[in-house]
């Protein structure tokens, strides 16, 4: 079995996380923003798995499962809200959600 | 117990007035009047005999004392006490409180019950400030008295009341929080040295402090009191607050609230931080003198009569600050007399302005003139109080100012001379008031009525008190003497001598005058 070096895994996770952040920051379509968020969460999950592997513990993987579940819940609520929003605004442009400000 | 009752009577009276005043405005007035009269009688019956009795040499400084547990976990107790100084100030509070009630009698038509509720609570807060001996409790009352005052201004004030009220509150509150921080700092330093974490005044006295720390803590206290006093250059809230407040509010502000600042300097700043106060004294005295002159000059240029009187307070209270930082018996006695007399004379001037405003609906000096013809009695009183305010001998203010100057002179001759120049400036603005309002040609036709009985009695009592203090202030001096003497003794760290503070102990305790170093 080939072991992947700990730092490589972590770097991958960090890169994924950054990609997710960039996605959230740059996309105006709200669906893509949610995708970006998913990527961030999963990157964190990956980091957990890598860390768990470093210490030879199952904790990292357990955390990953929990993260998965939470991400799913989050997205489901999120999509519900997006649906409602789309009904009202007929748009997925998140920048239109700027009535509250100041 | 007496002290609690003294504070509780106005509190209860205020609540009662507030409740009954919703239906019947007259009831609120009479209840307030009755409560204050009752309080005054109680104070006279309980406190005066104790205060005038010669003190046993072994007894502590407190004539009456009460200590109840409050937040014992934090070393906070409900500790009230009164010495001669407090008794004098309590009596002043009640007397001016009565004047405030009297001058609101016909001025306040709307929400009368709520008005008297606030008025009585301010007075109760002030009584608390003058008697609280736990620093936490002191701060509690200190802030407490400002809230009803705030409402007095915003609800019954004049045109620009919101601005004035917020300014008043902000200045006093920020400075008060600095004091709170200093109180807490002192508490911990004392606790760490002695192991006894307590906010009690007598415990905190004599806490040895390193020079820098002591200075910072002292400045925290000083900030609060200087704002309240008000000292130059943090006096700017005062003209606005005075001008916009209803008459009773101005009377209480000028007559009493400012006095809490002076009281704080006397009771806390110097006794708690003798070294720092000594080091700071030249600066404080310079500020005081600057205030004396600045206030007097600005008073002269005002066109709003109330604002004019407000600036005179800045000038007069400068004398008090000057005296406190001289810290010898003569100056302190002078400060006390000045505190009382400024309260009476400025309070009376505000009452007069209020009467004019009630009749003429203006405070603009440019529209007055020649009123003597219409209201000779009011004019006579105005003349009397203007003369008092410029320090005419025979009236109380003179005794105060003279004692202060003569007491300060050995320590700061130059500053004394400049401060004495304030007397000239005082004569300029005082006579200006009389000239612009009562003398000269009438600039507009006014048909206004002269004093009625209630008003004449109000002013008459204040005038009589000033005359009495001007000709025979000895009873007050006598009453305050043991208290002041005691305060002047406790200026040396004694409880827990720490090496660095004993090393820097001055030779002062041997000196019977116990004065601070001369600024020559």
């Amino acid at each position, binding site marked *: 079995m080939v072991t992947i070096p700990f730092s490589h895994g972590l770097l991958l996770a960090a890169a994924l996380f950054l990609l997710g952040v960039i996605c959230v920051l740059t996309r105006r379509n709200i669906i893509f923003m949610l995708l970006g968020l998913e990527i961030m969460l999963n990157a964190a999950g990956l980091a957990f798995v890598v860390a768990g592997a470093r210490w030879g513990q199952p904790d990292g993987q357990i955390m990953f499962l929990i993260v998965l579940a939470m991400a799913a819940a*989050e997205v489901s609520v999120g999509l519900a809200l997006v649906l409602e929003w789309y009904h009202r605004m007929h748009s997925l442009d998140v920048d239109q959600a700027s009535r*509250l400000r*100041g | 117990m007496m002290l609690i009752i003294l504070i509780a009577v106005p509190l209860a009276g205020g609540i009662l007035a507030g409740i009954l005043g919703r239906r019947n405005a007259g009831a609120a007035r009479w209840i307030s009047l009755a409560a204050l009269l009752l309080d005054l009688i109680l104070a006279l019956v309980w406190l005066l005999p104790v205060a005038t009795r010669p003190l046993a040499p072994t007894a502590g400084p407190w004539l009456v004392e009460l200590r109840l547990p409050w937040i014992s976990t*934090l070393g906070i107790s409900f500790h009230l006490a009164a010495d001669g100084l407090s008794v004098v100030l309590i009596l002043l509070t009640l007397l001016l409180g009565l004047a405030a009630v009297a001058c609101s009698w016909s001025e306040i038509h709307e929400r009368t019950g709520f008005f008297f509720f606030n008025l009585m609570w301010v007075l109760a807060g002030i009584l608390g400030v003058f008697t609280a001996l736990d620093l936490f409790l002191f701060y509690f009352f200190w802030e407490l008295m400002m*809230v009803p005052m705030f409402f007095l201004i915003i609800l019954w004030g004049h045109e620009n009341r919101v601005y004035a009220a917020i300014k008043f509150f902000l200045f006093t509150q920020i400075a008060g929080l600095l004091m709170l921080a200093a109180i807490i700092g002192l*508490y911990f330093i004392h606790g760490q040295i002695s192991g006894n974490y307590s906010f009690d005044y007598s415990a905190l006295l004599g806490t040895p402090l390193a020079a820098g720390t002591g200075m910072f803590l002292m400045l925290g206290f000083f900030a609060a009191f200087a704002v309240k006093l008000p000292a130059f250059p943090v006096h700017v809230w005062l003209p606005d607050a005075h001008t916009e407040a209803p008459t009773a509010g101005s009377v209480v502000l000028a007559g009493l609230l400012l006095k809490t600042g002076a009281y704080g300097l006397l009771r806390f700043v110097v006794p708690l931080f003798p070294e720092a106060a000594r080091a700071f004294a030249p600066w404080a005295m310079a500020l005081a003198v600057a205030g004396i002159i600045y206030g007097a000059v600005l008073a002269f240029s005002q066109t709003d009569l109330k604002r004019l009187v407000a600036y005179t307070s800045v000038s007069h209270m400068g004398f008090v600050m000057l005296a406190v930082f001289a810290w010898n018996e003569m100056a302190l006695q002078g400060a006390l007399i000045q505190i009382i007399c400024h309260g009476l004379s400025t309070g009376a001037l505000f009452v007069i302005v209020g009467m004019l405003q009630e009749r003429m609906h203006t405070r603009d000096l440019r529209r007055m003139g020649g009123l003597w013809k219409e209201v000779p009695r009011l004019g006579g009183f105005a003349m009397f109080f203007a003369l008092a305010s410029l320090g005419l001998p025979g009236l109380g203010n003179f005794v105060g100012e003279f004692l202060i100057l003569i007491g300060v002179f050995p320590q700061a001759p130059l500053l004394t001379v400049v401060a004495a120049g304030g007397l000239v400036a005082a004569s300029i603005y005082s006579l200006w008031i009389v000239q612009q309002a009562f003398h000269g040609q009438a600039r507009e036709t006014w048909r206004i009525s002269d004093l009625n009985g209630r008003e004449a009695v109000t002013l008459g009592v204040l005038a009589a008190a000033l005359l009495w203090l001007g000709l025979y202030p000895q009873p007050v001096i006598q009453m305050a003497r043991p208290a002041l003497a005691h305060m002047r003794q406790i200026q040396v760290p004694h409880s827990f001598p720490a090496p660095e503070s004993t090393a820097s102990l001055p030779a002062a305790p041997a000196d019977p005058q116990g004065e601070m170093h001369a600024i020559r």
Partner: protein
Amino acid sequence: MQSADYMALLPLLVLSGALGAVMLLIAIGRHHGLTALLTLAGLAAAVAALPVAAARAPIRVTALLTIDGYGLFFMALVLLATAAVALLGYAYFRSWSGHREEFYLLLLCAALGACVLVVSSHFTAFFVGLEILSIALYALIAYPRHRAESLEAGIKYLVLAAGSAGFLLFGMALIYAERGTLDFTALAAAGGVPATLQSQVMLLTGLSLLLVGVGFKLALVPFHMWTADVYQGAPAPVTAFVATVSKTAVVALLLRLLAPMGAQSGAAFSQILAVLAAASMVGGNLLALRQQSVKRLLAYSSIAHLGYVLVAVLAAGPAAVPAVMFYMAAYTLAQLGSFGVIAVRSSRLTEADALESFSGLFFRQPWLATVFTAMLLSLAGIPLTAGFVGKFYVISAGAQNHLWWLIITLVLTSGVGLFYYLRVVVTMFSTSVPVDLTPRPVVFSGALVLTISTVLLIWLGTAPEPLVRLLQNMAP
């Protein structure tokens, strides 16, 4: 797990049971009043279970939770605040048509998350609790779907909360990668800052990311931007919940996390916290200065308040923990009261949010105005109110640890803060009253909450001794 463990977990179990019961009730038949009643009963039962748990405390239940006096106090605070929010919610939704019952369900769910947070001593529990709380909140904030503002607020909160959860999670992962444990106490026991640069960077980066997540929930500057929008968009009872329960729970957790780690987190880390505290105090107060929306005003002011709390958190002396606990209690009371006043004045279509709608309130609804004034004065830290004792406590904690610059910042910024509280007060006492504003009758449940919180506010302000004594020796 043994029976003692179950006993210690009883409040959480009761709460979960209540959650199920409410869900069943809604499934059986919708009834607003009954649902609210059942919710309150559940909360009451959970509160009643607290002494049972307290009798076993302190106890570690599994690796995840620590039931101790500290946690139970905060749990009590959370439960009581939730009950208040439920009562306010009843008043708020009473006249609405449509589905109102799920509000209580979501509320209980969020409360459960908060309760888990306050007793968690493990990253897993922390994350689970936080997410239960957050996800319920997304729905709660956007609950009035017919309002675009609420939807917008919900979406904003969702995106940002999920993003910050990502940061948090990544930070946890880094810490775990460096230390090999997810347990708070074990983390603290694992020793000081590691020697090698790479490890050091990883640990510190992890802690920083953790702080981002926490800072977001607490709305510390610079993670504060969502606050005002969400407060304004959410229905008033939910705003009250966001302002109180969700913050209290996270503060409790932060203190539990930091207290044992204080020594090892290093100078740079406490510097960061100090900067965040100062930035929050300054930023929050400045932002609120000219607000015309009372909810936004309170939102910005809550940023500042969390800055004050952070001063006490930083102090970390013996006075710090009671100071934080007392302050949070006082803050919760005042916020509940404030948003309660807004809630009872709101209607289905409009939130009673605009400052001018408060103009002359004292003369139309004196009792309501008095309550609000008391709440604002408490937030401003004026004596006779709990807020004063809280501020006193915080300054004490700071002074004990010589955080003079933070204290001076606190004093000066709270002076600024006073200005906008007074603006609201002045508006309520303004004598120029708009004509057409007829007072809305206050629903009983709302009045109850307001009355109780006012009484408590004054009681804690004048006789804080019992609470002070209770908090005296508490430590996470």
